[in-house]
C-alpha cells in the first residue's frame, strides 16, 4: 500500500539566512523535492526611479549607490555615462582611467562576496566567506582612501570623478595587486576541487544557452551558459577598447560554471587594473560642468558590464534640471527570471545554492 503524500508549501524568506537580503521564495515541496517556486520580491522597494525625478542630475549619483550596495562604483559609472551621453560632456583622460580602475576593483570585491556566500550556501560554515571578506576589506580600504567612504562611495561625477587619488593609493593598489593574484589562486585551490563542492554544484541548476538568452540574462550567469557576451567587448564604453583581457565562459551553465566564471573574471579584472595603472596619464580628473545641468530634451541609454550583468540607465530629459524619467535595467532582477526553471526538480538545498550562484542584491532587485 502506498502512503498518501501531498506537497506542502514552505516559505523561504524574507527573513532567512540564505536569501541574500529580503528575497522570498514560496517553495512547493514534495518531500525534499521542489515542485514549484514562486519568487516574491519588493520588500526593499524604495521608489528610487520616482525619487530621481525630483532631483538634479548631480544629486542622483548618491542614490545610485543604494541600488546594488555590493558594487556602488559600477552603479555610479553607469549613471554618469548615461548623463554624459545625454548632455555630451567630455571626460578627462585621467578620470577615465581612474573610473576603470575603481570599477574593476569593485568587480573583484563583488565577486569575492558572491563566491564567498555561494560557498556558504553550500554549507562551508563561513570559512571561505571569511577569507573572501578579508580581501574585500582591503578593497574597501582602497576606496576609503579615494572617497572617504566604505560602502556608499559616491565617487563618480558627471564629467569625471570627485577627487584625484592620493599618492598612497597608487602605492597601496600596487601592493594589493601583487597580493590578490596569489590569493585568488589560493581560494581557487581551497575548494575548487573539493569532492563535496563538486557534487553539490556540478550539473545543479543548469541554465541552458537558449533559456539564458530568452530570459535576457546577462553577466556571469549568461557567460556561464556558454554565451560570450560582455559589454566591455561588445560595446566598449569608457576606454575599455584599450585594454587586453579575455571573457571567460562556461560550458554547461551549472552552478559550478558560474562559480568558475566569477573566479576567472577576478583574474581578468586584475589584468585590466595592471594595464590601467601602467597607462595612467597625469592631468585633470573633472571637466567643467555647470552645477545645474540642463540637457537638451532627448533621451540616452548608458550601459556597462556591472559585476552582476548589464546595468543600464535610461534617461529622458525635458530640458529642466531634473530628469523627466529614469529607468534602471537591473541585471540581478532580470537574472532571476529563470530561477524557477533552474530550481524545479532539485532539492531544497539546491534551491539555496542556485539562488546563491545567481548573485542577487536586493537593493537592485527591488529598487
Amino acid at each position, binding site marked *: 500500500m502506498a502512503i498518501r503524500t501531498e506537497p506542502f508549501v514552505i516559505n523561504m524568506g524574507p527573513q532567512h539566512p540564505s536569501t541574500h537580503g529580503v528575497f522570498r521564495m514560496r517553495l512547493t515541496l514534495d518531500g525534499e523535492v521542489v515542485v514549484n517556486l514562486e519568487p516574491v520580491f519588493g520588500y526593499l522597494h524604495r521608489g528610487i526611479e520616482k525619487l530621481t525625478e525630483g532631483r538634479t542630475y548631480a544629486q542622483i549619483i548618491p542614490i545610485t549607490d543604494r541600488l546594488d550596495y555590493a558594487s556602488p562604483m559600477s552603479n555610479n559609472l553607469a549613471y554618469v555615462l548615461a548623463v554624459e551621453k545625454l548632455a555630451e560632456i567630455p571626460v578627462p583622460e585621467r578620470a577615465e582611467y581612474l573610473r576603470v580602475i575603481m570599477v574593476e576593483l569593485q568587480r573583484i570585491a563583488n565577486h569575492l562576496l558572491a563566491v564567498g556566500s555561494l560557498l556558504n550556501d553550500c*554549507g562551508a560554515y563561513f570559512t571561505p566567506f571569511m577569507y573572501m571578506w578579508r580581501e574585500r576589506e582591503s578593497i574597501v580600504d582602497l576606496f576609503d582612501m579615494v572617497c572617504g567612504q566604505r560602502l556608499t562611495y559616491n565617487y563618480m561625477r558627471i564629467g569625471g570623478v570627485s577627487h584625484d587619488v592620493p599618492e598612497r593609493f597608487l602605492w597601496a593598489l600596487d601592493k594589493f595587486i601583487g597580493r590578490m593574484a596569489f590569493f585568488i589562486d589560493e581560494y581557487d585551490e581551497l575548494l575548487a576541487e*573539493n569532492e563535496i563542492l563538486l557534487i553539490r554544484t556540478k*550539473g545543479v541548476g543548469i541554465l541552458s544557452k537558449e533559456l539564458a538568452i530568452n530570459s535576457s540574462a546577462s553577466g556571469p550567469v549568461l557567460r556561464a551558459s556558454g554565451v560570450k557576451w560582455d559589454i566591455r567587448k561588445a560595446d566598449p564604453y569608457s576606454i575599455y577598447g584599450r585594454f587586453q583581457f579575455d571573457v571567460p565562459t562556461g560550458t554547461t551553465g551549472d552552478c559550478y560554471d558560474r562559480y568558475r566564471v566569477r573566479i576567472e573574471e577576478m583574474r581578468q579584472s586584475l589584468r585590466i587594473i595592471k594595464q590601467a595603472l601602467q597607462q595612467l596619464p597625469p592631468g585633470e580628473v573633472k571637466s567643467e560642468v555647470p552645477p545645474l545641468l540642463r540637457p537638451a530634451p532627448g533621451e540616452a541609454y548608458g550601459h556597462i558590464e556591472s559585476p552582476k550583468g548589464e546595468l543600464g540607465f535610461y534617461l529622458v530629459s525635458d530640458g529642466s534640471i531634473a530628469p523627466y524619467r529614469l529607468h534602471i535595467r537591473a541585471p540581478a532582477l532580470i537574472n532571476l527570471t529563470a530561477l524557477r526553471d533552474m530550481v524545479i526538480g532539485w532539492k531544497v*538545498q539546491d534551491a539555496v545554492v542556485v539562488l546563491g550562484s545567481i548573485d542577487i542584491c536586493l537593493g537592485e532587485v527591488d529598487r
Partner: protein
Amino acid sequence: MNHISAIPADWPGGFWAHFGTFAGILLVFIIVMIIVLIYLERRVIGRFQSRLGPNRTGPFGLLQGIADAIKILLKEGITPAKGDKLVYWLAPIIAFVPAFMVFAVIPFQDGALLADLNVGILYIAAISSVSVIGVFMAGWSSNNKYSLLGAMRAIAMVVSYEIPLGLAILSVVLLSGSLSMNTIVTSQNIPFILFQPLGFLIFFLAASAEINRAPFDLLEAESELVAGYHIEYSGSKFVMFYMVEYFESLAMSCIVATLFLSGWRGPGLPPVLWFLIKVFAVFFVLMWVRSTVPRLRIDQIMGFAWKFLLPAALINLLITGLQVVLWPEGIPWQMIFANFAIMGVLILLWSRLFKVGVGRVEV
C-alpha cells in the same frame, strides 16, 4: 550486581553510595568538559576563519561560554501556540538523558567508569540511538515546516548510518574478543586504528552523521533550514538541545579514543591525561572538518551510507573475521600494511563504481 565489577573493595558505603558519588562527579566533569569544548571550538574555528574568536569575557575569553549560558537560560521559554505541548516539553529531556547516559561506560582510566558493563559497547549503540527520538519529537511538536523537515532528515540519516556504525564496531569487537569497553582498551597493545584503518574511517564518518556533525549536519543546515529541528526552542530547552550536540560530540570522541586509539593507555603520562589528549585530538579533527568542507545533500548522504559505507563495512568485517580466524593468538603487526593496502584499494574501487545522489527529479 554481578555485572558491575568496578567497585573498589575498600569503598565506604554500599553500591548506591558509590553510584551516587561517581555519577555526581561524572556529571560535573562532563559539563566542565562541555564548556571547555565549546570554548575551544569557537576559538579554533575562529583561527581557521582568520578571525579571533571570543577573547573579551574573562582571560582569553574563557568565561564566554558561561556568559552565553546565563544569557540563554534567562531567555523566555516560548511554546508554539499550535504545537503539541506535552511532546514539545518532553523532547529535550528525551534527547538529553541518553546522550548523557553514554558516559556511564566510558573508561577514563583503568576501571574508572561508572559501570563496567560486559556489554558496554552494545549499550552505547543502543542508548545513543534513543536521542534521535527526542529530535523527531522536537521537530514534530514544534508545528513548523522547517523543523519537520529537519526531523525527517534526522530519522532517515540515523536509520541509515546505524548499520555501518554497528558493523564497524563489530570488527573491533572481533579483534578484542569482548564487548566491555575496558577490556577493549586493555586488549589494544597496538591501537586498533592500525589494524582497522577502514573500520576507523567508517566509524568516524558514520558517527559524524549520527551526531549531526559537518559535513552531515543536515538537521540544522542553517543555509536552508535555518536551525532545523530546534528552530522553535528557546531558553533552557534550547540549552538542552545545544548541550546534547556537544555531549554527543564528546561521547563520539571518547568512543573513538577508546575503540581505536587504545583509550587511556600510553607511555609516561597518567592514563586520564592520555585519554583526554586523545579525546581532544579526535574533537580537533571534528572541528577541522566542520570549518572546512561544504555540506552534502540529503540524497547524497543516503547514497553514501548505503552504497559506500555499508558494503565497505561488510567487506571490512569479513576481512577482520578471516584474520581473527587465521591468527587466533593475535594478529601479527605485519598485517597493518596489508590492511592499509586493502583500505586504499577498496576506497579507490568504490569511488569509481557508484555515483552518489540521484540529481534532478522530473516533476
